């Protein structure tokens, strides 16, 4: 197994994509810890699925907007594991609002809970990689480069994550830690319901996105997870600071 003996932390492991990533890393041999905040039931499902072969998955409840909470998370991971090897920044928290309607407190929330949390968690993760080779993968979205309804704040945070990943990739290359980003297209998850406040019909909106995809298929969570797993593996050692788009060709069309 390509990640045998590795330990991996995945934020937002209670959701559909986070669970798929945690399970893919587990199946590749890694021991997995996830974070969650509001969806404990989802976290328990992931834990159950990602345990086995004497590898018990761990779950930590943390609000990624809370910096003291992030520090506490890494203290607990250090206690549980000592060191670890892989950090996947997947958690998302954002309202769906157009830029002109966005209260500034919500803007601050989105940048703190997404972009700043990515930096903070990566800093703490690298401390616990302690000179060993490691991998950091962040999940972005097409809203970082294009415009989706109500996506202004999160789009900016995701664009920031992609830019930050490039800087981190350069800074951490000498430590043999590679940093990359995976950018999924349309993945059918309950998170799409957030668009209900900005589009007349979420189902129709999702269908229109799929119509623009060359094969008219949604991206499966496992397909995103497979790319994340590859980027965490030694096979991707020379890939640094890249954003890999997994959208079935959606973004190729004019």
């Amino acid at each position, binding site marked *: 197994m390509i990640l045998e003996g590795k330990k991996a932390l995945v934020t937002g492991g209670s959701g559909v994509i986070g669970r798929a990533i945690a399970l893919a890393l587990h199946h590749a041999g890694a021991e997995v810890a996830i974070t969650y905040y*509001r969806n404990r039931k989802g976290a328990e499902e992931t834990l159950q699925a990602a345990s086995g072969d004497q590898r018990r998955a761990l779950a930590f*409840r943390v609000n990624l907007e*809370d910096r003291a909470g992030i520090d506490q998370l890494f203290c607990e991971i250090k206690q549980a594991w000592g060191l670890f090897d892989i950090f996947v920044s997947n958690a998302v*928290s954002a*309202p769906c609002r157009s830029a002109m309607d966005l*209260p500034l*407190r*919500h803007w601050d*929330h989105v940048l703190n809970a997404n972009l700043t949390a990515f930096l903070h968690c990566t800093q703490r993760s690298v401390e616990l990689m302690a000179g060993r080779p490691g991998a950091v993968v962040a999940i972005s979205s097409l809203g970082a480069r294009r415009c989706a309804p109500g996506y202004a704040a999160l789009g900016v945070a995701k664009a920031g994550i992609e830019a930050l990943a490039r800087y981190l990739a350069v800074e951490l290359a000498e430590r043999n830690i590679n940093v990359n980003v995976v950018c999924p297209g349309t993945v059918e998850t309950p998170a799409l319901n957030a668009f209900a406040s900005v589009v007349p019909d979420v189902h129709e909106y999702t269908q229109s996105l799929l119509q623009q995809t060359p094969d008219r298929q949604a991206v499966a969570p496992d397909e995103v997870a497979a790319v994340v797993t590859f980027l965490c593996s030694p096979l991707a050692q020379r890939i640094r600071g890249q954003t890999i788009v997994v959208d079935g060709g959606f973004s190729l069309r004019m």
Partner: protein
Amino acid sequence: MTPMPTDREIYECVRQAITAIRQDLGDRLTLDSELGQELGLESLDYVDIEFRLETTFGVEFFHGSALEKLSELLAPRQLEEDGLLTADGAAVLRLRLPEIDPDRLRPGQPVAGIEAKFKPQTWVRVVKELVQARPQRCPSCGSERLEVTKPSLLRCAGCSAELRSPDGEECLAVWASRLPASLEQRAESRTG
């Protein structure tokens, strides 16, 4: 064990949590203000306020849909249909949210947006329910010196044992388990 906070003390913390993110509310905020429709708070604000209250009181709210959870717990009773409150749904919510005017929780109302009717009083009641549900003494050594270390987690100062305190989901389940009798009574009083 720290003493049980009074309603007034809990309300003061709720008020501080709300005004920390909405300084402009000032004197407009009362125990009875409607948070969404009257004061314009949104679901993301609720996340922030609940985090502050969880940190202050060492409790953990239930973050899922209470109506969905209650539907599971009270099955086969149907609390919502096609996104609208049923008669049972309205009756259950009126009991669960006594601080909200019953006329604001009528059968046929959309389920979406019920949170907007919450009041500071709603959180006062839920915090109180969670704090009251905590174990009062350590089952291992009998000590009453229990300290909150994290939301829903206590440590016994006597023997260092870790104890779980019921969280919002568990408290909701306990509440629902006592509900059917009162619901029947309600149905009888409607027909009577």
